[in-house]
């Protein structure tokens, strides 16, 4: 059993949950993920670690309640427990030795981009953060990003906060004006796809963090396979970070939608049982 030490609502659909997990906290690095199973009949879902405290023995994940299990998870309260928490899984992010980096977060992806920005900033890299949201009411991690970046740009699709438009527009402008040697993009698959498209002509190393369907997370089931440069890779052991210029994003989008009908069915059942 893994106890919830703290739960914070970040916006209407995004919640931060801190678990007591001393073994994992000791080892986890930015870019790695955990697998959570809530109860005996629960499914295993991967969640990227957004923060950790080795002293306290805790790891924090940020969850967007969109599916059956994520809704069940955010319904838990501080003091409640989940049955299983497995990790740290996947490879830590390999930054190399950049001088000037852009870290891009899209929506809930900002929570996962944050430890990356923090890690880079702490080793003296010049960090520019671009964080994108649909609208003002769902903006998260503004203060956190400010503390670990040299420059922060916030975009909203509807212009209700920061600059109106997409993260790619800001990115394009930055790349035209200055030289960067690393871009990290974490967020919706389509955002990562277009970020990679923008950086490609500049030949800038672009790391994306993928979130395919996964069961065991240890390299057994192959559910999380992605096509990277024409090769089959497993996000759980080879990733979850990959070279954005080599990933077949369209295949990933299609495969991620595989259980949509089953998921909707479960959600309706869930709504019914919740009254």
């Amino acid at each position, binding site marked *: 059993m893994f106890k919830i030490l703290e739960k914070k609502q970040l916006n209407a659909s995004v919640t931060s949950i801190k678990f007591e997990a001393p*073994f*994992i906290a000791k080892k986890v690095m930015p870019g790695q993920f955990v697998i959570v199973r809530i109860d005996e009949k*629960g499914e295993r879902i991967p969640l990227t670690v957004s923060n950790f405290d080795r002293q306290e023995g805790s790891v924090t994940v940020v969850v967007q309640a969109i599916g059956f299990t994520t809704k069940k998870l955010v319904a838990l309260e501080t003091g409640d427990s989940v049955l299983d928490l497995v*990790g740290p899984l996947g490879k830590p992010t390999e930054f190399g030795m950049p001088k000037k980096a852009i870290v891009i977060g899209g929506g809930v992806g900002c929570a996962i981009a944050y430890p990356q920005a923090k890690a880079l900033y702490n080793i003296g890299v010049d960090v520019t953060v671009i964080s994108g949201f649909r609208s003002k009411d769902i903006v998260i991690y503004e203060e956190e990003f400010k503390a670990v970046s040299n420059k922060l740009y916030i975009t909203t699709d509807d212009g209700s906060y920061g600059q109106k438009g997409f993260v790619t527009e800001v990115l394009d402008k930055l790349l035209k004006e200055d030289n960067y040697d690393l871009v990290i993009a974490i967020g919706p698959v389509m955002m990562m796809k277009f970020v990679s498209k923008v950086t490609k002509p500049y030949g800038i190393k672009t790391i994306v963090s993928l979130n395919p369907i996964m069961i065991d997370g240890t390299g057994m089931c192959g559910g999380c*396979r992605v096509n990277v440069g024409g090769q*089959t890779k497993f996000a759980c*052991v080879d990733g979850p970070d990959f070279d954005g210029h080599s990933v077949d994003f369209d*295949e990933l989008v299609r495969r991620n939608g595989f259980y949509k009908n089953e998921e909707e069915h*479960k959600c309706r059942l869930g709504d019914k049982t919740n009254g």
Partner: protein
Amino acid sequence: MADMSPDKVKMPEQDPLVRNKNFFEVSKGYTPEMAVNEANRCLNCKNKPCVSGCPVNVKIPDFIAKICEGDFLGAYETVKETNTLPAVCGRVCPQETQCEGKCVRGIKGESVAIGRLERFVADYYMEHGKTKELNIQKNNKKVAIIGAGPSGLTCASDLAKLGYDVTVFEAFHTPGGVLIYGIPEFRLPKKIVEKEIKELENLGVKIMTDMVIGKVLSIDEIIEMGFDAVFIGSGAGLPMFMGIEGEGSVGVYSANEFLTRINLMKAYLDDYDTPIKRSKSVAVVGGGNVAMDSARSAKRLGAENVYIIYRRGEEELPARKEEIHHAKEEEIEFKFLCNPKRIIADENGCVKGIECIRMQLGEPDASGRRRPIEIDNSEFVIDVDAVIMAIGTTPNPLILSTTEGLEGNKRGCLVVDENMKTTKEAVYAGGDAATGAATVILAMGAGKTAAKSIDEYLKNK
């Protein structure tokens, strides 16, 4: 005088067309009367070829003799002396190539049904036996076992009986390894596996789940924690794919994913949260036990047509005879001498067919089996909405890549000597992690050998 009937006593089974719609066990097991009748077919021959055919050397004629006497619990004790998981082995061992393959009765007629008898005594014990208070002299030495599958559980059991303090680290949330995630309920009820594991816990073995070794702890850290020796039985790893066009389409699974959803996550039961697609027509590529399990599971999920696509002929199928027989009875359609060329997807990227080419058999290859060769211009398409790849696995890299001093071979398997010792001091390995994908019983045999080696190593240390 032995009963000279040429045939085994028939195993009561669920009707094929009923059972292919449910996940209950196919074979119902012998009654005591059937068991005694079958046991009487054993000649109790002097040189006991069956025992040498068993990777864990169960004293087969001895336990069968006890069944003849009606001493079923005594028979169980005899099996249990060398076999940690009799209820499992009785169900899933490829007896025809092991004990039963060597049985003298098999020369004229059918061999003695050793597997069925083993299962009978194990099931009888589970229903009627009592856990014995074991008086184990603890030796205060600690051994860590990585992986709670067949090899790890066997190694743990043998070492615990010798007085070692044993802790098993398991990556999944449930111990059992392939017995839990791989082999389906209708062939090996999970209750049976749970009971066998309970037996192990009664021996004092501790099992820690959710521990992915190589990630949360390294082998060296485990040794630093005070363990005197380590056995790695981490099992098979990454599923293989063919590398053909369309394999990234929606509706293509590895057998591991498909079976894990069903067996470990119980996705076929409505009250479990893990989803599974119920496909109409399913192609399973491969001819081993995993392919049979996948095909029969797909049928039980409601598929109208399930095809096994295998590039060699029926004779070459590596699966257990009984599984092939059961699959056929359950209306699984075998496409022998066929090999997939590409998977065809619709405009949404979902599988709508699999294009195969016909094969013929040429000269024997390195495996001793005749090599399949493509017949030109013989391509044809089977309409399916799901494809399951059951063509094997490659070892999991997690431990090898994070442990200094541990050597792997070209295929990524851990290198071990005949005593299951790795290239690293105090570290032993066995099962699929060392051999590549093989059977439950071979993994158990390796676990046994390793336990013996570890005992010798620690006694002399």
